[in-house]
């Protein structure tokens, strides 16, 4: 295959300055957007304008602003399950320091570690609903496009916090549903740890980070295939 740089330059060589619309059209569009934003802010109740400005700008422009995205801390629910030190046997392929209070390492399959409530009704370690699933991510899992993905610092590495899709359309599309599991993709050594955390735990980002910081690959874990 030839140089990718050359291929890309060749592909867009026909796009020239003379083919662009008049800059005044972009200005008119931008000024209209700025005017609309000012009008919306004018109707925010006094005292909330400063806090709401960032939110309104975000929602009006349909997403991130192009500026660095700061990790969004979710509200901590009083029903969130706390972490406690794990004192059981360490599973092969992983080390784990903490588990949710009242939870245990339920099982280890060839590719993943399952953490579930003690005495859970479903004791099958190959079924993951309502449980924490930790695995060594395969190549597809590492490169997949994720919903609501954003960076999140876990220890001294930058992980990807995202939401698993739980609703699928007949046309093949997907999106997160109301009780979708949280996902975390964390670089670890020469691999990646993939966490699936059920919404029942009601964990905020800080708790997820504290949990993930205590999990590591030992070199024996095998990525799931397919």
């Amino acid at each position: 295959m030839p140089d990718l740089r050359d291929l890309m330059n060749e592909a867009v060589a026909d796009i020239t300055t003379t083919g662009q619309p008049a800059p005044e059209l972009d200005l008119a569009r931008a000024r209209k957007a700025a005017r609309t934003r000012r009008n919306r802010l004018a109707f925010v109740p006094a005292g909330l304008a400063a806090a709401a400005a960032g939110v309104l700008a975000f929602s009006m422009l349909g997403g991130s602003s192009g500026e660095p995205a700061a990790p969004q801390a979710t509200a901590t629910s009083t029903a969130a399950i706390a972490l406690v030190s794990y004192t059981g046997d360490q599973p092969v392929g992983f080390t784990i320091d903490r588990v949710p209070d009242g939870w245990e390492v339920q099982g280890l399959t060839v590719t993943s570690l399952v953490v579930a409530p003690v005495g859970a009704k479903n004791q099958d370690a190959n079924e993951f609903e309502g449980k924490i699933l930790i695995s060594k991510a395969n190549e597809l899992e590492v490169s997949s496009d994720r919903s609501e993905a954003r960076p999140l610092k876990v220890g001294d590495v930058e992980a990807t916090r995202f939401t698993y899709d739980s609703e699928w359309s007949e046309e093949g599309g997907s999106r997160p549903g109301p009780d979708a599991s949280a996902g975390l993709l964390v670089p670890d050594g020469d691999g990646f740890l993939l966490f699936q955390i059920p919404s029942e735990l009601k964990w905020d980002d800080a708790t997820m980070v504290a949990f993930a910081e205590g999990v590591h690959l030992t070199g024996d874990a095998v990525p799931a295939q397919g």
Partner: protein
Amino acid sequence: MRASTRDEEFLTFVREHRTELVRTAVLLTAGDRDLAEDLVQTTLTQLYVRWDSFRQARNPGGYARRSLVNALIDEKRRPWRREQATDELPEDTVLPFDQIDSSLRTEALYAALAELPPRQRAVLVLRYFHDLSVEETAETLSCSGGTVKSQAKRALDKLRARMTEQLSPSYRGNGAYHA
């Protein structure tokens, strides 16, 4: 900032940088020119609304590119994310690379880019079209340099495999090449 000064600066920016933004957007969208134009318009509007921040950015070019990449990712994050349908090229359209028409090379590039997740596409466009370093690319994408390297490698491997598949020698029964 006075509105007229912002407007004047904005117009100058558009005249000087719009073409490059469109080229970048066309690559990021794997050849979808309508979507590329939408993304550029969205990006320019965002820059104008935040013009004071943009003017003070340490790296205005990187700021604009990041805004464009984010617009692409937000576009892909619309409620229903559709599975990408890929059509197998009929064998009689595949030719030896050095004899293939440039338009077919471009078509193969766009088809291969379209199969990559948006962030992997962005890594390749930033690293190869814009010739950014790993660090500059990481800053634009708000990720680590390690992620840039691993994503670039995976993306290149996939791109190479797909384009090789599309451009490998194949002839009709009479050995004729297609123009």
